[in-house]
């Protein structure tokens, strides 16, 4: 019973935050809605016993990424609201909503269509239970995650490390201002 209540709360927070992101004209408010949504997702992770992931979710997503968003919004001064009613193409908003609804309907339909050997109305999970990477409730999920990560997926792990490095370097290169060198500014300061 407690699970259901926690789930309901979490779900409401998630959906509320999502709709807030989409509908809020002010970008800062949208970012804060995003934070709320992330927290809701973290709650749902905890509910599914993925504690480590919940922790990471809060630290990385809510803590780092959204903060980054807010930094950029404040830095660039794009905190002015944009007009939601302006449509460059006729019916473009409607088409967008239509596609979104279509995707939702299709996803749910796919979820509930019965596969071979299942009843209509329930989700047919056809995959097999894993033997090698089974989650056991004795050990903390962090340990199991670590074992899986560093033995079976170590190559992907290294690759993502490389990816992060490249992303950082790329970001620095891209935002670097052309022309002005530090030396010149120092000299200028000195003469001043």
């Amino acid at each position, binding site marked *: 019973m407690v699970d259901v209540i926690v789930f309901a709360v979490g779900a409401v927070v998630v959906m509320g935050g999502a709709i807030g992101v989409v509908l809020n004209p002010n970008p800062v408010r949208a970012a804060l809605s995003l934070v709320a949504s992330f927290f809701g997702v973290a709650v749902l992770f905890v509910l599914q016993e993925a504690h480590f992931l919940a922790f990471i979710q809060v630290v990385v997503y809510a803590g780092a990424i959204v903060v980054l968003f807010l930094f950029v919004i404040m830095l660039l001064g794009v905190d002015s609201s944009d007009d939601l009613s302006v449509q460059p*193409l006729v019916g473009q908003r409607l*088409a967008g909503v239509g*596609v979104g609804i279509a995707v939702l309907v*299709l*996803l749910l339909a*796919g979820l509930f*269509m019965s*596969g071979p050997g299942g009843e209509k109305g329930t989700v047919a999970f056809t995959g097999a239970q894993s033997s090698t990477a089974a989650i056991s409730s004795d050990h903390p999920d962090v340990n199991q995650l670590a074992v899986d990560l560093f033995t079976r997926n170590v190559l992907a792990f290294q690759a993502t490390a490389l990816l992060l490095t490249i992303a950082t370097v790329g970001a620095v290169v891209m935002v670097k201002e052309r022309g002005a060198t530090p030396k010149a500014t120092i000299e200028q300061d000195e003469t001043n």
Partner: protein
Amino acid sequence: MVEAAWLIPTLPLAGFIFLVLFGRKLGEPGAGWVATLASAGAFVATLVTFGGLLSVEGPERFHVQTLFTWIQSGSFSVDAGLLIDPLSITMSLFITGVGTLIHLYSIGYMHGDAGFARFFAYLNLFITSMLILVLGDNLLLTFLGWEGVGACSYLLISFWFTDPANATAGKKAFVTNRVGDFGFMLAMFVIFSELSSIRYTDIITRSGEIGTTAATVAVALFLLAAAGKSAQLPLFVWLPDAMAGPTPVSALIHAATMVTSGVFLLTRLNPVLAQAETWSLGLVAWVGALTALFAATIAVAQTDIKRVLAYSTVSQLGYLFLAVGVGGYVAAIFHMVTHAFFKALLFLGSGSVIHGLNDEQDMRRMGGLYKLMPVTGFTFIVGWLAIAGVPPFAGFWSKDEILLYAWNADGIGGKGLWAVGLVTALLTAFYMTRQVILTFFGRSRFHDVTAPELDEALENIAAANRQAVIDAEAARDKAVVAAEKASGDLVKRNEALDKAKSKVEAATVDVARSDDADEGHAKLVKALDRATQAVTKASDALVKANNAVDAAKELVVEANAAVEQAQRDADNSGNAINVTVPHYVTAVTAAPDVAEVEQHLPASYRERKEYHPHESPWTMTVPLIILAAAAALGGVLNLPFNHDLHFLGNWLAPSLFGHEAELTASAGTKWLLAVVAITVGGVAIAAAFNLYVKGRGKPASVEKRILADAWKVDQSYASFFGGPGRALFNLASAFDRKVVDGAVRVSASAVNIAGRAMKSTQPGFVRSYAWLVALGTAAVLVWFLGRLLA
């Protein structure tokens, strides 16, 4: 003992590498001795291997020594191996033997040349390639040697490459050979496609599996290859030009060894020839016979000592092909060996003559050399007797055997082949006799003035006369000017006299008028005296001026006479001089008298006059003597009288697998044919003697212009390839550019056009792209659902 075979090609190879690295430092004559030792080492190794073969019985004389695996590609593998059997050892013996002698000879011949070490490096490389060619145990290794000798031939022909003519000759040899190589490669492919192997052992044992058509095609292609390498019709054009290389090269490569590779190849592949249709063998025989005749006609009219021998080589090689075509393999190898001896001897002898005459090669300027170069002359005569087919010298036995096999052949016009061979023998004897007579006997024409030199002298004289005329005219003009000046002087003096006379008159009048006044009177009288004296002076001057005018006029007359004389001299200059260059027929006994024009003759004449022809050093004469002995005694290799005396025939039998043609002629026929051949040879020698020694008849009737031009074959090739040939090449090139490349370009531009047409569909509106992606996602989901439901 047979295992020593691997040393045979490797010793000269080691020599080559050593000379490439250190040859320049060693210099003369060290580099030459190193190369000769390497070649001699190969000869010793060949002797050892030969001994090894002799120690086993006949049919077992077939040994393959594999050195290493060369190519291994799937099911195709080729080993670097040596096939040691009587045929390859025979070839190897005379290649290394004659080769070593020529190495020794070259030490003397190339003395003083800047590229001494380079020459010997190339020679060693050549020996290596040739040995690989004959010792290889599969077609690919033979081809490697084939190409190697072709490359060395190019390097050595254009040895003095700074002269463009030599470089061109080298290129011509290489390109013409290449046409043949193309035939070789195709034939190799045919053999491989029939047998899946190119090893000789496989070809020999499984020759029955080769279909008749394939064998015929292979034989025709191998004939093409051999025609290129051995200079037969129509690919012989490179051999005469190859004489541009040093004479030892001509002796080694273009007489004794490389040019025999074609015949060796056909003999080695005698099982394939046995499988082919008879007409292809007939083709081989007729190509050989016609080439022999063709080249012999050309040799009759050549004036360069080496060119005669070059065409002679082409002709003798034709004999070898004739022999192979009629199934006389032993006869072919026998003649090949004797030809190596006497042709190398003749070439080295001519080289000695050229060396002794300070690089003079035109036989019209030789003569009377026997006394000055006795060793060279004597050995050359031995060579001559050998090639002319005079018994008991070697050439007689081998040539006779070939003619016998030709007579014996049926189905391919054997009697016709015999007739052609006989006519060629007649011509051979004739032109060789001509060469010997012109070079060594008769009057020594070396110090004669040549027609071009005489023309130059006459030109000089004419120029001097013209100059004299000009000088005389200049003198005359001067005299005329002087005469005019004198007459002008005279006029002036006349005027002066008149003036003086008038002054006297005036003074007299004054004196007569003023007789009373004393003062003025004395002055006037004095004035009158002065005036009278002036008149006397003026009349003296007038007399002098008259004399001067007369003298000047006389001078002008003299000068005119001088001009006329000079003019007459100039007009008669040609007629007055009485020097003729005699025709070089040796019967003319006296040298032309050039005293009249001697000081006008060019420097080349004076240099020649100082030079005295001399015999060559021992490094050159010793090889000549050895080769002369071989040419004289070589006949013992395969005497026809008794089967036991058939040394060469019995020796080579294991390599021939019974494909030697069967001789059905009786002993009487053999004797008759021999007598006919000897008679023909004798007639030819007598005719040459008559024409060139006794001087009866005109040489020009035999030495026709078209023969000297080699039946204009070179010119016709040049005009074909320059004319219609070039048009064909241009057509092919245009096709490649426009059609093939054009197709590629059209496809590229089609893509270009399509892209440009599609470009206007892009709105550039980012959110529409996102929307399309989402739509695509929905479509994929629909598809998934479809699959779930189905």
